[in-house]
C-alpha cells in the first residue's frame, strides 16, 4: 500500500509537467490577446500603446520563452501577475475568492451527499412504490430545470415577492457594524438560495446513483443470505448493504474535490457571489492568461489529488481492494 501510494505520488510529477504544457498551449491558442481585449475598438489607443502593453506583460517574447518563464515561476509556487489593468499577483486574486467558493461548495456538497444518500436508499428500498416514483419525478425535475431559471424564480419569490431573503451578494450593506452572531446570520441568509440552487441539480443525479448502487447490492447473494439468517431489514440495509453501496459514491466524492475550488459561473454570476467561477469566467473572457492558467493548474492538481484520495478511500472502505493491491 505504501509503495503503491509513493508510486502514485511520483507519477504526479510528469503528469503535472504535461498539464502545464497543455494548459499553456490551449490558453495561448485561443484567439485574442489580453492587450487586444483591453484596448480594441478604442479610438484613443494607437498601435504604440498596444506594443507598450505587450512589452509590459512580456507578450513580445517568443512563446517558448514565455512558457519557461511561467513554469520557472510556478516551480517556485509563484503564479505570476494578472494581465488585467490591476496587475495584481494571481495568488492574491485567487486567495480572496477561494474561501467563499470553498465554503459554499463544501456546504453544498455536504447537503448533496447528506440528502442524496437517504433519498437513494429510500427509493431503492421502496422500489416501484409511489415514494420511488415521486422521487424519480423529483430527480427528473432536478435534471431538467436550468440553474439560472430556478435561481431567478427563487429570487423573485423569496426576494421580491415575499421579501424573506436577500436577493444577491454576501452581506447586507452596513453589516460590518453587526455583532458576530448577527453578521454570521446575515451571511447565512444570503447563502440560502445559492446553496439550494448549487445542490439541487447534483442532488438529483447523486440520489439516482445511490438508488441504483443500492439496488445492485440488494440483489447480491450475501444480502439474501443475511435476510435468510433472519436479520432485521434495518440491519441488512444499513449494516450489510450500505457499506458496499457507498463505494461508487466515494469515487464521486473524490471527483468532487476539484469542483470545490472551481465554483460555478452561473450561480455565482446570478447571485453576485465573488467566487472562483466568476473569476475564471472573467479571466477567460479577458484572456488574462496568468489567472486562467493559475486556476487550471490548481484545478488539475486537485483533480489528481482527488483521484488519489478516492482510490485510498476505496481501499479503506473495501478490504478486498486493499488486499488485492497489497498482493501485487
Amino acid at each position: 500500500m505504501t509503495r503503491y501510494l509513493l508510486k502514485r505520488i511520483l507519477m504526479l510529477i510528469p503528469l503535472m509537467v504535461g498539464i502545464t504544457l497543455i494548459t499553456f498551449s490551449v490558453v495561448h491558442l485561443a484567439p485574442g490577446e489580453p492587450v487586444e481585449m483591453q484596448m480594441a475598438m478604442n479610438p484613443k489607443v494607437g498601435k504604440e500603446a498596444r506594443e507598450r502593453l505587450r512589452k509590459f506583460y512580456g507578450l513580445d517574447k517568443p512563446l517558448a520563452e514565455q512558457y519557461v518563464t511561467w513554469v520557472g515561476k510556478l516551480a517556485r509556487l509563484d503564479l505570476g501577475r494578472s494581465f488585467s489593468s490591476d496587475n495584481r499577483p494571481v495568488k492574491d486574486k485567487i486567495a480572496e475568492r477561494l474561501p467563499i467558493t470553498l465554503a459554499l461548495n463544501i456546504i453544498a456538497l455536504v447537503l448533496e451527499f447528506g440528502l442524496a444518500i437517504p433519498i437513494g436508499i429510500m427509493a431503492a428500498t421502496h422500489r416501484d412504490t409511489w415514494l420511488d416514483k415521486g422521487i424519480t419525478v423529483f430527480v427528473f425535475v432536478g435534471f431538467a430545470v436550468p440553474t439560472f431559471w430556478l435561481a431567478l424564480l427563487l429570487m423573485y419569490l423569496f426576494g421580491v415577492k415575499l421579501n424573506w431573503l436577500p436577493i444577491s451578494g454576501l452581506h447586507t450593506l452596513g453589516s460590518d457594524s453587526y455583532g458576530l452572531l448577527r453578521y454570521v446570520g446575515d451571511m447565512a441568509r444570503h447563502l440560502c438560495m445559492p446553496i439550494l440552487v448549487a445542490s439541487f441539480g447534483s442532488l438529483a443525479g447523486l440520489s439516482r446513483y445511490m438508488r441504483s448502487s443500492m439496488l445492485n447490492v440488494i440483489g447480491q447473494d450475501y444480502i439474501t443470505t443475511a435476510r435468510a439468517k433472519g436479520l432485521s431489514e434495518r440491519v441488512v440495509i444499513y449494516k450489510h448493504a450500505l457499506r458496499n453501496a457507498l463505494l461508487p459514491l466515494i469515487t464521486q466524492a473524490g471527483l468532487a474535490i476539484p469542483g470545490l475550488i472551481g465554483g460555478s459561473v452561473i450561480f455565482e454570476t446570478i447571485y453576485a457571489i465573488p467566487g472562483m467561477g466568476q473569476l475564471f469566467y472573467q479571466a477567460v473572457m479577458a484572456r488574462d492568461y496568468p489567472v486562467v492558467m493559475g486556476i487550471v493548474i490548481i484545478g488539475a492538481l486537485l483533480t489528481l489529488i482527488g483521484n488519489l484520495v478516492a482510490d485510498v478511500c476505496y481501499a479503506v472502505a473495501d478490504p478486498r481492494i486493499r488486499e488485492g493491491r497489497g498482493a501485487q
Partner: protein
Amino acid sequence: MSGPRRLRLLFPALLLAVTACTQSPAPPRGAGDVKPAYGDALVEGTIGDASTLIPLLATDTSSHAVAGQIYNGLVKYDKDLKIVGDLAESFTISPDGLTITFHLHRGVKWHDGAPFTARDVLYTYRVVIDPKTPTAYAEDFKQVKGIAAPDDYTVRVTYGAPFAPALASWGTAILPAHLLEGKDITKSPLARAPVGTGPYRFKEWVAGQKIVLEANHDYFEGRPWIDRYIYRIIPDTSTMYMELKAGAIDMMGLTPVQYARQTTGTRFTSQFNKYRYPSSSYVYMGYNLRHPLFKDKRIRQALTAAIDKDELIHGVLFGMGQKAVGPIPPGRWAYNPNVRDIAYDPKHAAELLAQAGWREKNSAGILMKDGKPFSFTILTNQGNQQRLLTAQIIQQRLRYVGIDVKIRIVEWATFLKEFVDKGNFEAVMLGWTTTPDPDMFDVWHSSKTNPGELNFVGFKSAEVDRLLVEGRSTFDLEQRRKAYFRIQEIMADEQPYTFLYVPDALPVVSARIRGVKPAPAGIGYNQIQWYVPKAEQVY
C-alpha cells in the same frame, strides 16, 4: 414521524429556518420636508468590478466610473457638453491655437490633506508619456511639444500644430505627485486605495462585492449632500433589476423592455424616477468596401433604402431611440440637421439595385448577376441581443428586395482577431460610443485602414481625409462645424455604413434622491447636488 415525511418537509423547513428574520421594507417617504440635507447613501448597481483605481492604467468602464468620483481633470464637460474648467479655474488658448494656459484653482486639497499644485499636472503628463507606463491614453499627449509651470498655479502647454482634441484630453484624471513621483506606478497601493481631489474619497473595496466612497467634506466645489456613494457589483442584469425592485439598490440603467413594460406600475413609479435621453452611441451595419459586392455606392444606398429604421427602433428598442443618419448623434453641436436620410423605400432600393446590374431573380426570389446570387453574411459579436435582433429584422427586410442574408455570431475576441482586424468579413453589425468632441480621425481617415486599425471597412475619400485633418487642426468652432457638416453630407451619400439607430440611455433613480436634472450630458454631471430629504434617509 416516518422517514419519507421527514424528507418531504426538509426543504421548506430548511428555507424557513433561515428566513425567520426578514428584510424590513424601506420606511415611507415624508411628503412635506424636501429641503436638502446631508446624509444617506446612494447605492448604484454595476455589472463589473473595477480593476484599478488609477484611471491612467484602467481600460474598463467600471474603473473609470468609480475613479470619476475620486479624481478631477483640469477640464470637464458641463451639462451642455461644453468644455469648462475643473481643477483649472480657467484656461486660455493662444490665438495661433498652439498654447493652452491653465490657471489652477487655489486651495484644492488631495484627500490626504496635501495641496494640489502644478507639480501634480506635470507629474501626470510625464507619467502618461513615459514609455514604461502601460497606459492606453498616451496618444493625445504625444502631440505636446512642451509643458511648463511658471508658478504653482499655472500650467502652460504648447503644441507643434493646433490640435482641437487637445483641450478635452486634459480632462484626464490628475494624479498626486507627492504619492507617486519616483515610484513604480504599476505597483502603487493607490490602485486599491486611491487618493484624489474629487467629491468622494475612497473608503473600502471588497473585491467582487462593493466599493464604498464617502463624501469629501473639503471638496473645492462644496461638500456633496449625499454622504456615501456605494457601488454594488452585480454581474447579472436580471438580478440587478430584482435588487432594484426590492429597494436594495438606488440606481441602474434599464433595458428598453424593462423601461417600457416592466416598470410602468404605480408601485414602481412611486418609488423610482425613470429618465430617458439619447445615449452617446450609435449602432451600424458596416460594409467591407474592399469586397466586390459593396464597391458600388448604389448598392450601399439600396441596402439602406431597404432597411426600415423605424421598425428597428420599434422592434428592438421598444421605441426608445432615434434614427442614426451619420457618425454624429443628433443634439451635438457638430450634428448636421440638414443631411437627409435615405428613407425606407423598397421600390427605390430595387431601382438602385437594378441600376447596379442586379435585375434578374432566381426561382427562390434572390437577385442574380453574372450567375451569382446576391448573398452576404452579417457578422456580429456574441452576447449582444439587441444586435442579433437588429440583424434578424434586417435579414427579413433585405429578403423582401431579393437579397439573401446570413447571420453569424462570433465570440468577441475571435470576432476582432479573425474577422474585423483581418478585414475578413462582408458586413459587420457593431456600435460606436462617441465622445462629445466630434473628432473621428481614427475611424474614417484613409491612413487608418491597416489591419488592426479602426477604419476596418476600408473607407477612403480624399475629401473626407482633408476635412478630418481640418476639423482637428483648429479651435474655431465655426470652422470645425463646417468641416464636420460636410463630412456628414459625404457619408450620407457614400453610405460606408448603414447608420441604424441611436439608442436612448435609460437610467432609473430612487425617488428619494432629489436634485437629478437631466441635460444633454445625461444625469450624472451634478451628482454632488443630489440629496435625500432628512425624513426619507434610509442608510
